[in-house]
């Protein structure tokens, strides 16, 4: 049976590198706050009525103009208002130096010149609202961690509860680091994915700890060390992890393939959150549990001279 713990050093190095690089990028560049989270610009192209598919022609003309002046389509999102009579383009940076309002007006008017419709073009500077309530998020996370710790203290003893807590915190931090590395949108919705990442890590770790408990009760494992029991439990959980990741991949690929705009980013965010949390919980749960158990065992053997055995929980 292959041992997960034999590669512990590699997992730790990978995680430390990810955290270091990601947090540095977050510190230097900040998060990618997207169009809805930071000061930005929007272009408003409107017609007074949508006759003969005029709105589609207008939108195509506007988007062709954006491409012509070098504005890539991934840097803006489009919303339509008033039965498609108004197209609102939201940009995530200052495009006023690239955009010529008069030229845009010309292009759009030309696209529907026979319709007799009136076109209006305006460029607005936008101040978005502050959004994230950081203090409440930190408070909520603190309460979650304490509550889970207390519950698992009864169900899985100190070693189990610390292992689960550690993986949850590490998973959330690694997800934040990955936001810095991947530059995925970090709007208010990102908190949901961060929480989901910590939650998934907690769920997966709890499953492994539960399995460790069962393995300890198994008489066939009485001569195994803590490390070997933990490895065995982790290995038996491999299929669960693979199935979980495969399921998430299916949803995410569908969102990326079928969705537009932010929906695609959310699909990628879901993959990142799930991979990060699964990686952390799979590689660190057994490691932390074993480390705590061995530390307690060392303390016990210093006071008594009992031989090495696996105690039943």
């Amino acid at each position: 049976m292959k041992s997960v713990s034999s590669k512990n050093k590699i997992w730790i190095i990978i995680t430390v590198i990810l955290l270091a690089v990601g947090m540095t990028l977050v510190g230097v560049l900040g998060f990618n706050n997207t169009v809805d989270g930071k000061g930005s610009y929007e272009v408003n192209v409107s017609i007074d009525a949508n006759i003969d598919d005029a709105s589609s022609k207008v939108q195509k003309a506007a988007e062709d103009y954006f491409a012509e002046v070098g504005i890539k389509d991934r840097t803006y999102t489009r919303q339509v208002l008033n039965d498609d009579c108004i197209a609102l383009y939201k940009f995530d940076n200052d495009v006023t130096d690239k955009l010529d309002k008069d030229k845009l007006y010309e292009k759009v008017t030309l696209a529907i010149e026979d319709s007799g419709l009136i076109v209006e073009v305006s460029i607005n500077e936008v101040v978005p609202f502050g959004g994230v309530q950081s203090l409440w998020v930190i408070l909520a996370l603190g309460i979650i961690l304490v509550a889970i710790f207390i519950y698992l203290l009864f169900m899985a003893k100190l070693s189990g509860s610390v292992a689960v807590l550690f993986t949850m915190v590490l998973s959330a931090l690694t997800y934040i680091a990955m936001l810095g590395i991947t530059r995925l949108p970090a709007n208010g919705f990102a908190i949901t994915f961060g929480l989901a990442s910590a939650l998934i890590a907690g769920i997966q770790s709890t499953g492994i700890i539960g399995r460790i408990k069962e393995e300890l009760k198994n008489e066939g494992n009485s001569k195994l060390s803590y490390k070997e029991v933990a490895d065995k439990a982790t290995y038996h959980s491999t299929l669960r992890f693979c199935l979980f990741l495969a399921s998430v991949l299916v949803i995410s690929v569908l969102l990326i393939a079928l969705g537009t705009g932010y929906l695609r980013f959310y699909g990628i965010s879901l993959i990142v959150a799930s991979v990060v949390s699964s990686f952390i919980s799979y590689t660190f749960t057994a490691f932390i549990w074993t480390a705590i158990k061995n530390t307690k065992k060392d303390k016990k053997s210093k006071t008594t001279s009992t031989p090495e055995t696996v105690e039943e929980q």
Partner: protein
Amino acid sequence: MKKGKAITLLSILCVLMAAALFLTFARFPIGVKNYNSILGAIQFDYDLKGGSAYTMPLAKDSEEVEDVEEVMNTIEARLDALGYKSYSVKALRTAGEDGNYDIRIETLATPSVDSDIATVMAYGTVKFFGGTTEDPTTEIMNEEKSIAGSEYISGYDADGNEIHQVSIEFTDYGYNALLDAIKEAEGTTNENGEANSYYLKIMLGDTTIMNASQITSDTLTEKTVYVNAQSESSGKQMSLQIKTGGLAYKYDMENATVYEISAPLGDKALLMVQIAVGAFIVIAMAALIAMYRGYGIIASLSMLCFTMLEIGMLVAVPNITVSMAGIVGVMLASLLAVDGMVITIKRIREELANKKTVKVSVKNGYKRAFFPILNISVVSGIVALVGFFFLKGAVQSFAITFGIGVVISFITNVLLSRMFTEVILPLVKNKEGFLGEQKKEEIE
């Protein structure tokens, strides 16, 4: 369970499930109306469905806005207080000009959205005026530090007429400041040598909400004063304005433009998300059958029940609007349900590998799987509960749908899948093969 009984029960279950599936997903006309299925009755939020966009210019008689972010923070607090979870608040002005910012609010188009936006944009800060004259003009207390909260209260007077009131609860600072002002006034005398009375007047913006009323240190025993409102809607609006802090600038609601707006996640976001979730459920069921054979069928039936129960609960529980974050909650809960079934079948197969009978293996398998599933459900439930009570917006939406899903997935894993196992197994000849007996020490 005997074969005959199992066949009867399974038939009943199949009929019930078929009916539930039909009601959940089918759409058809009934007379002049349409039945849009239970799925169609789910209320989706602004980010998936679009809604209304309100753009309000600053009123001509308003002061110049010094801090537009403060305005938006107040608007956001009011939208949260009114229960809106998915919305966008922005200040915008023509690029390159230094004029005032207009405010644009994009949110779900509910039946009450017009009045809610009017409430959200209601102008006025609370000001307290106190003094020894019958029309005090001296402003006392700082609104931000003085008010702890405000609630709308309705009731009936002695004659049976409905009354509408708004309570204003002071903080310790506000209460003490008011009490000190009253006592100071009571310590002075008027030109006739009589002890002065203290009058308190409360204004909200330009409107007097409590006329100058005499108040003494003896009568001010509570930290709460009550003001009358004309109606329930004005009372609720007043209470919200007081609770969330004043909007210091007046916006021109009469010249506000209101448009329908598409979903910020894309025009077809809702359809795409529904397809993605539906496809996931189908693929998960196929994968379960492929990997776990007979038990995969049981797991798939359980997943089907889970899906229908989840959709049903999203409709049955009042005031739920499902945003993209809510969809993520549903997805995670589905994964929890699948995870629970994987845990169970693994335990059952291990029991079979230890040469136990099928009946004993199933019983022990479910018994062994109970606590791992319970632990996972409790951990998930804690996250959902804390997220619901302490967080707002998208995360709260996630917490609601995920919390409902956790409860349903627990019931699915512990009860429904067990029920299907008990009903289907008696009908199978090769029960060990059906459950996919695992060889001892087989590495999966």
